[in-house]
């Protein structure tokens, strides 16, 4: 049904029409043996000037002699002409983009172009924050790198966590590590 145009353009000696089932170029036919059913699929290609010189000549000669194919060619040409006439009369085919749309295009591309480094910086900062947060979380879970500071005995203070009544001394409850120099409000006697 449809000739393989690529091959026809390269090799004008061979005729490579498709078989009747449209399966593709299957066999060669000498030029003289081409029938209407072989020519008619090529008529539009002929009108569109897409055929090689040899095939164009073949189709032209066939159309001249065959009234059926001539009628098909005339009908195809009339259809194309009608389409072209419809288009030339069409009033609503704008030739240019509106000013607003041109401005919108330039705003879009300029804005993107100007701020691409800002977007990159934001991205890097965001990645840094995510990674840092993840590391902190993992450090807490697995107790990485956090060791309580052990001070010598004479630098440790006791802090009374119970309320203190006047005149009574409640024993200290717990020992809390403190950094040297920290002010402690109360101190109980051991």
């Amino acid at each position: 049904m449809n000739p393989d145009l690529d091959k026809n353009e390269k090799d004008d000696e061979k005729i490579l029409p498709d078989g009747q089932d449209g399966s593709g170029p299957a066999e060669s036919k000498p030029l003289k043996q081409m029938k209407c059913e072989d020519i008619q699929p090529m008529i539009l290609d002929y009108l569109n000037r897409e055929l090689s010189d040899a095939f164009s000549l073949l189709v032209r000669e066939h159309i001249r002699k065959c009234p059926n194919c001539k009628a098909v060619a005339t009908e195809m040409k009339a259809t194309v002409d009608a389409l072209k006439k419809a288009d030339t009369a069409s009033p609503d085919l704008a030739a240019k983009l509106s000013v607003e749309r041109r401005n919108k295009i330039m705003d879009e591309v300029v804005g993107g172009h100007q701020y691409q480094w800002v977007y990159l910086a934001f991205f890097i900062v965001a990645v840094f924050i995510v990674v840092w947060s993840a590391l902190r979380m993992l450090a807490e879970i697995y107790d990485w790198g956090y060791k309580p500071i052990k001070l010598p005995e004479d630098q440790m203070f006791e802090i009374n966590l119970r309320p203190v009544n006047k005149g009574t001394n409640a024993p200290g409850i717990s020992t809390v590590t403190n950094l040297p120099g920290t002010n402690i409000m109360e101190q109980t006697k051991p």
Partner: protein
Amino acid sequence: MSTCEQDPGREKLRAFEAVVSSYESALLRYASRLVHHHDAAQNIVQDAFIKLFKSWEHEMLPSSKMLNWLYRVTHNCAVDYLRKETRLQVLHIRQAQETPKAVAPDRGDGTGISEEAERAAAILTQLTLREQQLVILKVYEDKSYTEIAEITGLTVSNVGYILHHAMKKMAAELRRARAI
């Protein structure tokens, strides 16, 4: 836009503006013929140019390769628009019903389009989107089969085959319309 570091960017923007001026008409015509809607066509072409600036890796100079790329993107944007608006087949049917009415009524004074042309335009909208695309690219944009193949991703043989059947369909419908 005023710093020295942005000079290469400024060059690119200037080249891009030149590309927009070169190709906006062709793309607008193509988009209008696909979607039959002025504002939608403008939006589609606007999106195509923005995508060009963001995705084009080669030099920002008008070329046939760039134009074919733009046609392809415009077609894809048009398809997205049509899918969003309605189902493609319903839209074609609606357009087929509406299009003859939308044609200029002043046929009598010889300045309007002929009945045949009106019918042809209406029948075009009844084809599948792929067939419409190929007919528009061939008949209106005068692209070769090779260029159409590059734009659509089809083979040259396929282009010829689909076009042949589309035109055959249109010719049969016109014949039927004349007979009525």
